[in-house]
């Protein structure tokens, strides 16, 4: 439908749909986002290395798992492109079958759907998707540019508390899921199965921040504090905890995309 470089020319892209896809109808696409009520998460303690190091403060040396409560999980999402090809990516999917050029923000702790944006879809089957989390790097740009709607300019703003035994600390992560170079996407290719038949199309993107957090080694986070009295931990970009969230968002714990065609909006 349109390449990323064309994303700034919405009307031209719309015209391309009609010209380049003879016989295919163009339908309006409504994209909603919804979160997941996580409650108190149980994040298992990782098996210690062998031989186990001597445990001492600020590490939490007790047995048992971590109880994690998320207080904020704001996610920016979009633009989104769905592809007919089994795998996405700018070269494997030069023309999308559906797209939303908007960027929306979701409270990923709230299951109630909110409108992320509007787009359009062609008739046909999408088998893959690529998208940004509110931070895009167009071919015409020299670096990643956050969308004004992205919270604080970030893909994810996460706040929570982790507790195990007598140890409790608040944690904060401002995660930027960026493309590795101009023209690419934060998420390069994700499997999707979605048939677009019109006349009204919807797509729901469900985020699960609990799944993103579940991969964090909170024992390591606790040990990484300057002292046992440090109760506010910010995940540095170079930290494993930050990278755990980053990988969860762009590879291992992708949001699910589901939707349906309907007769009425």
């Amino acid at each position, binding site marked *: 439908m349109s390449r990323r470089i064309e994303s700034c020319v919405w009307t031209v892209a719309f015209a391309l749909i009609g010209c380049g896809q003879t016989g295919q109808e163009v339908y309006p696409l409504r994209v909603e986002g919804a979160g997941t009520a996580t409650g108190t998460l149980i994040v298992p303690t990782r098996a210690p290395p062998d031989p186990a190091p001597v445990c001492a403060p600020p590490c939490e040396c007790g047995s048992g798992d971590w109880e994690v409560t998320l207080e904020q999980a704001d996610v920016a999402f979009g633009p989104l492109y769905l592809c007919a090809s*089994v795998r996405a990516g700018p070269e494997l999917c030069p023309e999308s079958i559906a797209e939303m050029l908007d960027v929306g923000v979701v409270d990923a702790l709230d299951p109630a759907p909110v409108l992320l944006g509007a787009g359009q879809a062609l008739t046909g089957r999408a088998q893959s998707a690529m998208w940004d989390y509110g931070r895009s790097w167009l071919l015409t740009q020299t670096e990643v540019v956050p969308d004004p709607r992205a919270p604080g300019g970030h893909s994810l703003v996460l706040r929570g508390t982790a507790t195990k035994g007598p140890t409790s600390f608040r944690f904060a992560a401002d995660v930027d899921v960026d493309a590795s170079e101009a023209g690419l996407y934060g998420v390069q290719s994700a499997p999707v199965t979605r048939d677009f038949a019109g006349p009204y199309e919807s797509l729901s993107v469900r985020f699960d921040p609990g799944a993103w957090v579940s991969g964090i*080694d909170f024992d390591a986070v606790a040990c990484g504090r300057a002292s046992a009295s440090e109760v506010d931990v910010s995940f540095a970009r170079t930290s*494993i905890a930050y990278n755990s969230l980053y990988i969860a968002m*762009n590879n291992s714990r992708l949001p699910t995309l589901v939707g349906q065609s309907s007769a009425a909006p």
Partner: protein
Amino acid sequence: MTKKRNDKTIARAALPLVAMSALIGACGGDDDAPAGSGIVEVRLEAEETIPDGIAAGTGAENIVDGWSVEYTKYIVAIGHVELARAATPDPHFHSEAEFVVDMTSLPPTGFQLARFENVSAERWDEFGYETVAASAAATRDPSVTQADYDEMVAGGLTYLIEGTMTKSDGESCVPGGAACRAAISISFRLGVPVPTVFSDCEAEEGAPGVSVAANTTTSVNATIHGDHLFFSAFPTGEEALARRAQWLANADTNGDNTVTRAELEAAPAAGLFPAPDYSLTGAPFAIEDGWDFVVAQLKTQGHFQGEGECLSDGMGHDHAS
């Protein structure tokens, strides 16, 4: 030309004559060659990174973080060559033959995987092959020891890759661990079950399949690359791609200078593959640990005619080099 038939019987009967591999894998040919037909020979080709290793350096083909890699074994189980036309699915040519071959010691002309005779002179636009889970049905090439073959079959392995990476000032830094330790040489021996169908292969210039000329033998290569283990990402196109090996050194969690599957399985991806040096987006499946990364990268190693691309289990894959 006849329709496809299962030639596993042929392959087994030919086992004692495996060196005469021209007899193996032929399938689909008629007794009476039609006018305007040719022969297609399919050979296994190893990218030069397999026999020659991968040097440290700053070039596009080098490992950029200072490690050099040499393989002592790069054994693959491979076969099931397919040649067809999209517009006319039948008849087509297919070989059920499977081989277990060490690609560090392939003959310069390659290793013959299949030979199809009486192939009508036209473009056969669908070419593919499989890297398989080794079974007793596979023919052991003399380049593979009986012990390694038995290990491959017992484990249903697709690859058995053994090598050493070296760096004069190398270190192993276990993620989240204590200080880095000096490690100038790290060995690995990875038996990996990763059966994969490589289909719809296209040469680098973009022509799909094989063009067959009359009264001519056309040779094409199923090429296995040897550097994907050290890719820093899962490319979907011509994006820039670095080769990095530090992650494998860091997976040596017990400090014995040898990396095992168990260590890789126990090493979370978040520690081994820090962004932005590594990017896991676009991987064929979720990468939870170092072993997942190995399996996912090996799923993309099948190529055609050198740098030509094939779909990997139906999924597109492309990279610049």
